[in-house]
Structures are given as structure tokens and as C-alpha cells.
């Protein structure tokens, strides 16, 4: 999304006040009814990123990406330097769930009909097929952006996931579409 001239990028540096001078710098969000906030920073424990679903507090609405896994150049490093962490987290921001349904016993769901149920997240670059939850012969759709594989191994959203994201942009995040139309008009 375009950066409006009225909100210069230096806003991403936390304002310094006498009372907050010893606190860590926490960048303020832009208005989340008009913008997708993307925080790029270091994260504890090697975590690549996290997101906020629609409906959460505006002060934390957006996605957070590890600086070593953002974009395709600079500090981005293998196997997470194709920008897929942002794809995955923005998928959550648009209300997508993990393809294994966030349970470890095949009882979970991602609320999308065309992603096969899976038992666990897949990691690395899995070998086809990885069958779980009686989802043979093709098994887990580990090439989906909403699994946990390496950047190079994830390549797709399903039509059902696209419908769910479109529903989010027509519903709880509809104000962003209107905002984007104003920026380009």
C-alpha cells in the first residue's frame, strides 16, 4: 500500500518523551482501519513472525516479521528469504487459519473446504506425499502458504482460502478497501 506523504516514515520511530525515555522503542501503528501495519524487528526465540486476526485491538493490529525473514534482500537469509513469512502472516491478518486446524489430533479445522485436514504442521521441504488424518493419497497440502514449511516449499492459496480472504476484505476489513481507493484516485 502506498505511503501517504502526510504520514512520513519517520513516524515508525517511537516518539521520545521524558516518561518513556527508558522504555524500548515501540513503533506506533498507523490507523488500522486504513492501513496494514507491518512491524519488522528482532523477535525472541527465533520466531519468524506473528499476526493479529480481524477484530483485535487497533493498537496491535497488523503483522510482525523477523528482520532476518523479511523480503528477499538485505538481512533476509535462507531458508526464509523469499518473503513468505509476510505472505503467511498477512494470511492470518485476512483471517486464514493453519491448514492443520491448530490441533494435533485431526479434530481441528481451518474453516476452508478445499484444504485437506492435516494432523501437524510440516517443516522444511517435505517429501510428497505426507499422509495424515486419512487425507491420502495426496496427503497434507504442505505447499500451502498456511503451513510451516520453508519459503521455497510454499507456493499457493486455494480458491477456498481466497474466498475467505475476500470475505474479510468485504467485511471486517472493508474500510481498508475504501481507503486504498481514495489513495489511488
Amino acid at each position, binding site marked *: 500500500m502506498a505511503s501517504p506523504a502526510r504520514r512520513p516514515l519517520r513516524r515508525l520511530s517511537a516518539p521520545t518523551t521524558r516518561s518513556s525515555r527508558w522504555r524500548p522503542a515501540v513503533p506506533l501503528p498507523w490507523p488500522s482501519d486504513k492501513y496494514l501495519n507491518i512491524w519488522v524487528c528482532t523477535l525472541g526465540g527465533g520466531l*519468524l513472525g506473528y499476526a493479529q486476526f480481524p477484530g483485535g485491538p487497533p493498537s496491535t493490529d497488523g503483522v510482525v516479521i523477523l528482520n532476518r525473514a523479511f523480503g528477499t534482500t538485505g538481512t533476509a537469509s535462507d531458508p526464509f528469504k523469499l518473503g513468505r513469512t509476510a505472505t503467511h502472516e498477512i494470511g492470518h491478518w485476512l483471517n486464514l487459519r493453519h491448514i492443520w486446524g491448530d490441533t494435533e489430533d485431526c479434530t481441528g479445522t481451518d474453516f476452508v473446504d478445499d484444504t485437506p485436514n492435516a494432523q501437524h504442521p510440516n517443516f522444511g521441504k517435505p517429501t510428497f506425499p505426507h499422509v495424515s488424518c486419512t487425507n491420502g493419497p495426496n496427503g497434507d497440502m504442505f505447499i500451502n502458504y498456511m503451513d510451516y514449511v520453508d519459503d521455497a516449499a510454499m507456493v499457493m492459496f486455494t480458491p477456498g482460502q481466497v474466498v475467505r480472504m475476500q470475505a474479510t476484505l468485504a467485511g471486517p476489513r472493508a474500510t481498508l478497501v475504501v481507503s486504498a481507493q481514495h489513495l489511488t484516485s
Partner: protein
Amino acid sequence: MADKIDRAALSQRWVHSHEEDTADEMVFRPASYAFPPSRGRRSFQLKPEGTVVTFGPGPDDRSVQSEGTWQLDADNKLILQTGTAERAMPLLRVEPNKLVVKKE
């Protein structure tokens, strides 16, 4: 029967080192281990008195945790009970910096 695993050796936080898994085994390392970045890791902290705190990525990738109890049965199967959920993990071996679990 395999040698009985010492409960005291288990009492720490174990983090899934999924990069080291094989087709048959899962590998866990102490929390102090230098893990590479990951989209999410499961872990569990076993306390000597028999309580456990489990950690794992939530639906939005933020870590979520649950508290419960743990026990080690006669067959070296580690049983984690959190709420109504129970997870049994057959332990193959424990080393100072490595816990190996059989995949089931």
C-alpha cells in the same frame, strides 16, 4: 525392557528441534540451545514435582501455553496431561542436551 529413564534428567524445558527429526524420531533440545528461526516450535517444561507447562504456536503464531501434570510410566512413556488433553510420548533416550522421542 529398556533401561528406566531418570526423572531428574527430564526436569527442564524441552523444545522441539524439528530440523533434527527423522522418519521415526522426534528430537527435543533444552531451551538454551541455539535454535535457528522457525515459524513455531512446541515445547514443554517438566518440573520436578510433576507439573508441566506446554507451549506451542497458536492460531496466529503467537505462543500459547497450558499447565498440567506429567508422569513417566514403566515403559518410559512420558504422559502430559493438560486439561482434557493427554499426550503420550515414548522416550527412546535422554542425554544432557538431547531428548529423543519415538514417533507414533
